[in-house]
């Protein structure tokens, strides 16, 4: 008991000093289990390769330049879609959140189209735009847009009335109130919307690449299936998880710490 307690406190201390470790250590038992299952020989090696084979595939594909190319393609698509989705979604959300009329008119439409999920658009998009970048971008933008709009509306509505009143009575015009009060007040929710949007967008992208793709991580995985290469499929899956962790931990979480948490708008 004593040893457990002491090792736990040591772990806490070490991860406080090197926070990166806290992200890696929990995976040790997962990988151990993986190794145990593959080594036990329950499944044939071609069905379930071990970490060593997957790492080898990682280095080979990186060396050949395929993996970096595919990764870049996927990320670019996601970034483009997210950027367009934000540029459309945040102003739209602010408009709907501040105007009773805009809200009344657009809300049913928003809910209707939100229900027609990203992938459900694919059949018609493929007829309209073919197997190309337009189709992919459309799906990503569509997926990112709704969480951003809905959360922005929520954020705008959560800004206390007294803050806008204070700004007005200090001489701010309505337009200034939008910039000085509404936007920063809604920011924590906008970030939540972005986080959800990127998460859904990332999944949608992989699905679209599998169906439409000529490149990208999703395409790599599907192509590997055709070739019967479980190693590459596993590699693709691991990359998906890793990339999301990086986006969340290195980009989204720091923004949240610097804004909403710093201002006391959200508790950490």
């Amino acid at each position, binding site marked *: 008991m004593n040893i457990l307690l002491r090792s736990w406190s040591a772990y806490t201390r070490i991860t406080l000093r090197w926070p990166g470790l806290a992200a890696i250590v929990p995976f040790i038992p997962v990988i151990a289990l993986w190794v145990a299952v593959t080594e036990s020989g329950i499944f044939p090696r071609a069905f379930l390769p071990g970490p060593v084979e997957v790492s080898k595939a990682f280095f080979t594909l990186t060396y050949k330049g395929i993996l970096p190319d595919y990764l870049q393609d996927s990320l670019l698509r996601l970034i483009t879609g997210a950027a367009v989705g934000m540029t459309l979604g945040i102003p739209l959300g602010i408009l709907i959140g501040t105007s009773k009329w805009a809200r009344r008119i657009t809300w049913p439409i928003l809910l209707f189209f939100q229900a027609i999920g990203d992938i459900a658009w694919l059949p018609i998009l493929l007829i309209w735009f073919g197997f190309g970048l337009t189709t992919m971008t459309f799906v990503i933008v569509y997926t990112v847009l709704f969480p951003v709009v809905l959360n922005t509306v929520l954020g705008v509505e959560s800004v*206390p009335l*007294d*803050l806008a*009143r*204070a*700004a*007005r*009575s*200090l*001489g*701010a015009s309505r337009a*200034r109130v939008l910039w*000085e*009060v509404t936007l*920063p*007040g809604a*920011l924590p929710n906008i970030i939540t919307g972005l986080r959800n949007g990127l998460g859904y967008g990332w999944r949608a992208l992989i699905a679209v690449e599998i169906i439409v793709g000529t490149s990208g991580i999703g395409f790599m995985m599907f192509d590997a299936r055709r070739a019967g290469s479980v190693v590459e499929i596993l590699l693709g899956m691991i990359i998906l998880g890793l990339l999301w962790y990086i986006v969340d931990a290195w980009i989204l979480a720091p923004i949240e710490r610097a*804004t909403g948490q*710093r*201002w*006391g*708008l959200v508790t950490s």
Partner: protein
Amino acid sequence: MKTLTLRNLAKTYFDPYAGAHVNAVHDVSLEVEQGEFVSMVGPSGCGKTTILNMIAGFIPYSGGEILLNGKAIDGPGPERGVVFQSFALFPWKTVLDNVGFGPKMRGVPKAERDKIAYEYLALAGLSHAANRYPNELSGGMQQRVGVVRALANHPDVLLMDEPFASVDAQTRMTLQEELTRIWQERRPTVIFVTHDVPEAVFLANRVVVLSKGRVLDQVEVDLPRPRVWDDLIEDDNFKRLSSQVLHMVRSA
């Protein structure tokens, strides 16, 4: 000189739950001199906050008029500073930027408005907190910021809506003393809404007692200044005035 005039002010609104029109304020007339400190007291529902919100321009009035320096008011404006019960500080701005917000809206350059903000923070003894965020301050300190933020904008009239209702009793007394001190130094015109009778008497030159949307009576407060609680708590004049107002409010 009259700064603020309310003439037959009335507010009627439609209550969708009751399905009827409600008269929150009817026929309130009031003159406020420049540099005067007026307290408005009354039981809850007497319309005091509604009157203040109409003067601030936050809600439209349905009858009569509100004149500031002879001109009818139209919506909120910087000549009417407001201090809120909820403090209403901008959480994403430092204390310095909160106080400098009014000057910023006037187009005062950053260096100059920082100077103004520092001057007013010093007035409230808050210079050390300039670079903190509001959520890092106690309630009492937050409301000090709220008061000087409104003052730093040089309003013609300062509207205070139960500003000390949500701080603890000891802090409240300190804030009341500080407010009278600041008022004596700067002589702003103040309308102070409260349901706390001793507070109303302690701060004001004049106490307006409201009841059911009307002015019930007015009481002049000629207590000497500076006013501090340690003296006034035992003062016969203060006790007499307080109980006089209290009886009015209780019977209202």
